């Protein structure tokens, strides 16, 4: 049979295409009430009092709760602790689920209004009178670190969350001391709003007779939500809290975290013993979903006279927002600093990151999470180095790349790459993009009055997170293994329960391909279940491109256990020794004979154990496995962007995007290409269109699709996706991960292309997003 490697159509598509998907907001519970949140209109304000009397009298109001009502419950916790250079822990101010004495960003949750209908809840929320005393706010990194800046948290001096470093400074200093060339640049990594198309939603129901709380929520990791919400905030024991993440309409990181809203909705549903439902309006998503990126930094690269990289010094600042979101501290540190070797054999690297609080929404992992920021900085710097040294940008990259013979390769920033072939990806990308033919296209465009540019990025990322013991040392307050249970039914069909969660990635299809091939059963005979803590073993969910590499490996491990048990049963049935049983293509065979039992026959025997080795083997055919990764996985490759700038208007047309990636072994090429397309779109979005802007007072200026530019169909070209596979060496699937490569690899390629297009005018850099206004201004400035 062999379904692995085939572009099988997705199992999940029929329900989505016919309107039968079941998203959280589609769920209706009997007698449910609706919640609406009162949110702070100020970035920073003292709350002198809240008068809810008039609101409580409004039509349909069931209850109104404020921070004072929540006394006794824990704050929203942070799941990762970073230590400062001096070994002391980061500042970790409390995050009350509803504001108590102060509001710290526009959109901060101040009260919850619960009413019979959503319209009534929203109307009553306008009547909640909050006595705000506005305070000076800091809305950017620069404002937060300015002398005498207002403090977001009284106990976080200088608004500093942490001051972290990685790598060794002395060898880097020595590299710069002997360098023939030093290339340096300032880089801004623009703040983004994740914008999964399904807004966050939560509906909670409490059954007093069983003391069972059920929360349906838009989550990428329902077990994590259960753990944080139950054990750390509301003190609900895990066997009495069921968290279900049904169909989820995209996540991109923003649905990893435990938020204030589902916390308060759960608390209120229990308090009222009545289902309570909340669904964000898009405006609320803009205000209160965790945002992404938002770093500023300075990078210095030391090179010898021949262009060999000698040392790299990174000094960055990261915006954490007003509170620490679940994984926020990991993003600009271990998911970021570790990436600065990239695909290059730079011998000495030192990374310093200072993280600050501001009066803005919390910032956490967004597709790529720390790795796009590092990749952007590095790949812009390499392009600048090529320009400064007068070297070809491809040759400079090629000469500094880690050759494939060097694996496993230990970087100076903690990671050990297991495998890869960066030069092969580079060559594939160059050929596929017809790099050598570009100058003719530039000339042709010039005749049409357009400035055509080409840009490249050669990159690597670390995903498949991650070895639990390692991340524990680095500050994670969780393990990062994954679970799988495989239940073989009596007639040989199979249900797989995975601890990962699919919200667009196609697990129901790709995971079924793995299991179908493993057991030699039909693809249609395998069903994948996920998202319900009452069904699946404790799993860590989906983020960091981990589901196939880690969750798929757990599935393979469980499948191996099923086969091992099946061999015992088959040995009995075939009156052979267990050691003589082979399993292949769905058949247990006595080695060297034609005597065999099918997978289905063995399954049936396991459940109808009349003729069965009952003393040695239990009935049934169901196995659970937990897989803890041995290392990160390292996808990477080469992204090339070609675009044209209209010098009169600053408008950019992206002409084509070429991807040559190594994502390890591919289970379903259709899904893999789709993941790359989507990531590329978000990466192009960051480069050219998207930017979350707060004004100096902390007002969110980009609070809707009217003023935050989401990439639309006409903003993007068709993409060419190629693949050069080197399988991951340390997991049984051989997969490296594909979810984030697009958003990591393409962004610097786009900006390198913009700069390349404008370089004949003397433009050397441009800030993201490279909007027509910015491009036009850069052209005008260059022309004097």
């Amino acid at each position, binding site marked *: 049979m062999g379904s692995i490697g085939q572009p099988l159509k997705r199992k999940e598509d029929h*329900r989505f*295409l016919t309107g039968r998907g079941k998203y959280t907001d589609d769920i209706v519970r009997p007698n449910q009430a609706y919640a609406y949140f009162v949110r702070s209109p100020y970035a920073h304000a003292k709350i002198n009092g809240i008068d809810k009397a008039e609101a409580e009298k409004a039509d349909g109001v069931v209850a109104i709760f404020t921070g004072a009502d929540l006394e006794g419950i824990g704050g929203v916790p942070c799941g990762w602790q970073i230590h400062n250079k001096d070994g002391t822990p980061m500042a970790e101010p409390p995050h009350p689920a509803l504001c108590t004495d102060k509001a710290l960003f526009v959109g901060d949750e101040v009260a919850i209004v619960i009413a019979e209908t959503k319209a009534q809840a929203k109307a009553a929320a306008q009547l909640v009178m909050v006595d705000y005393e506005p305070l000076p706010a800091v809305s950017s990194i620069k404002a937060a670190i300015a002398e005498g800046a207002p403090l977001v948290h009284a106990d976080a001096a200088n608004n500093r969350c942490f001051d972290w470093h990685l790598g060794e400074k002395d060898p880097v200093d020595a590299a710069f001391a002997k360098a023939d060339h030093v290339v340096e640049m300032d880089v801004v990594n623009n703040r983004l709003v994740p914008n999964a198309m399904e807004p966050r939603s939560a509906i909670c129901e409490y059954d007093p007779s069983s003391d069972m709380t059920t929360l349906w929520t838009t989550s990428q990791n329902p077990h994590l939500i259960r753990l944080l919400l139950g054990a750390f905030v509301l003190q609900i024991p895990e066997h009495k809290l069921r968290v279900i993440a049904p169909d989820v309409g995209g996540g991109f990181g923003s649905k990893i975290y435990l938020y204030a809203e589902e916390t308060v909705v759960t608390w209120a549903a229990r308090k009222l013993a009545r289902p309570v439902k909340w669904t964000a309006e898009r405006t609320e998503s803009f205000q209160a979903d965790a945002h992404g990126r938002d770093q500023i930094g300075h990078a210095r690269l030391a090179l010898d006279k021949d262009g060999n990289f000698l040392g790299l010094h990174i000094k960055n600042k990261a915006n954490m927002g007003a509170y620490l979101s679940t994984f926020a501290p990991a993003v600009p540190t271990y998911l970021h600093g570790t990436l600065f070797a990239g695909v290059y054999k730079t011998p000495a690297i030192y990374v310093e990151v200072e993280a600050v609080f501001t009066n803005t929404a919390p910032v956490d992992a967004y597709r790529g999470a720390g790795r796009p920021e590092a990749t952007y900085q590095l790949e812009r710097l390499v392009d600048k180095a090529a320009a400064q040294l007068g070297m070809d940008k491809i040759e400079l990259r090629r000469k500094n790349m880690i050759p494939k013979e060097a694996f496993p390769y230990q970087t100076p920033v903690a990671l050990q790459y297991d495998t890869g072939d960066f030069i092969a990806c580079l060559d594939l990308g160059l050929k596929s993009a017809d790099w050598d033919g570009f100058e003719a296209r530039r000339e042709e465009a010039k005749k049409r009055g357009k400035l055509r540019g080409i840009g490249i990025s050669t990159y690597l990322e670390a995903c498949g997170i991650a070895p639990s013991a390692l991340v524990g040392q680095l500050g994670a307050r969780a393990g990062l293994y994954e679970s799988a249970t495989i239940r073989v039914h009596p007639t040989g069909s199979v249900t797989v329960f995975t601890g990962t969660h699919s919200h667009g990635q196609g697990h129901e299809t790709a995971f079924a391909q793995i299991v179908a091939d493993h057991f030699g059963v039909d693809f249609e005979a395998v069903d994948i279940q996920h998202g319900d803590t009452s069904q699946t073993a404790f799993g860590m969910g989906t983020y960091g491109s981990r589901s196939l590499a880690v969750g798929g490996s757990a599935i393979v491990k469980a499948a191996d256990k099923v086969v091992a048990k099946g061999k015992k049963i088959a040995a009995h049935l075939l009156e052979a020794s267990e050691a003589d049983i082979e399993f292949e293509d769905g058949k247990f065979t006595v080695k060297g004979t034609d005597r065999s039992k099918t997978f289905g026959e063995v399954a049936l025997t396991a459940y109808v154990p009349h003729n069965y080795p009952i003393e040695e083997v239990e009935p049934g055919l169901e196995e659970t496995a937990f897989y803890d990764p041995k290392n990160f996985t390292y996808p990477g490759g080469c992204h090339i962007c070609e675009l044209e700038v209209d010098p009169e208007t600053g408008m950019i047309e992206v002409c084509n995007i070429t991807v040559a990636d190594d994502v390890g072994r591919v289970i379903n090429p259709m899904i893999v290409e789709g993941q790359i*397309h989507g990531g590329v779109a978000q990466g192009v979005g960051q480069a050219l269109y998207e930017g979350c802007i707060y004004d100096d007072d902390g007002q969110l200026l980009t609070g809707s699709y009217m003023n935050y530019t*989401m990439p*639309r*169909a006409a903003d993007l070209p068709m993409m060419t996706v190629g693949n050069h596979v080197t399988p991951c060496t340390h997991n049984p699937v051989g997969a490296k991960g594909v979810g984030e490569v697009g958003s990591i690899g393409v962004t610097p390629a786009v900006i390198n292309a913009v700069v390349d297009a404008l370089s004949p005018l003397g433009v050397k850099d441009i800030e993201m997003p490279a909007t027509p206004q910015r491009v036009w201004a850069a052209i005008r400035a260059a022309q004097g």
Partner: protein
Amino acid sequence: MQVTITVNNRSITRDVEARTLLVDFIRGELALTGTHVGCDTSQCGACTVLVDGKSIKSCTMLAVEADGHEVSTIESLEKNGELHPMQAAFRECHGLQCGFCTPGMVMSTVDLLQNNANPSEPEIREWLEGNICRCTGYHNIVKAVQHCASGTKGA
């Protein structure tokens, strides 16, 4: 106010508040939850339905405005267990990932092909200006529409 709206070929009479949006009527009153709400500024297109055969964002219309009109939602497209050619094309070309924008995309592009049986790539992209997808980068959505159009021509 009382309204009578033909939804998916079924005549439905209900009392609605004057402020009820058509999308809330479809989702809340009729429990046709295939039509989604992705924004509050009529930008995303997840709520696209056909009203008298034309694609309309159902968040831009009041239920009372639909009184006496015919509304078709995503649930109406599959006939006798057969996907509509556009639904089939989205499946064939992997034009969907999380599925949230999908009903709006399908309804919108069904209308596109009614207007233009053989749209060019730029025409498809231009038409989709009012439908946002965060998952696919639009590549496979465009291919799905092209795939459907090529099939439609032959039929």
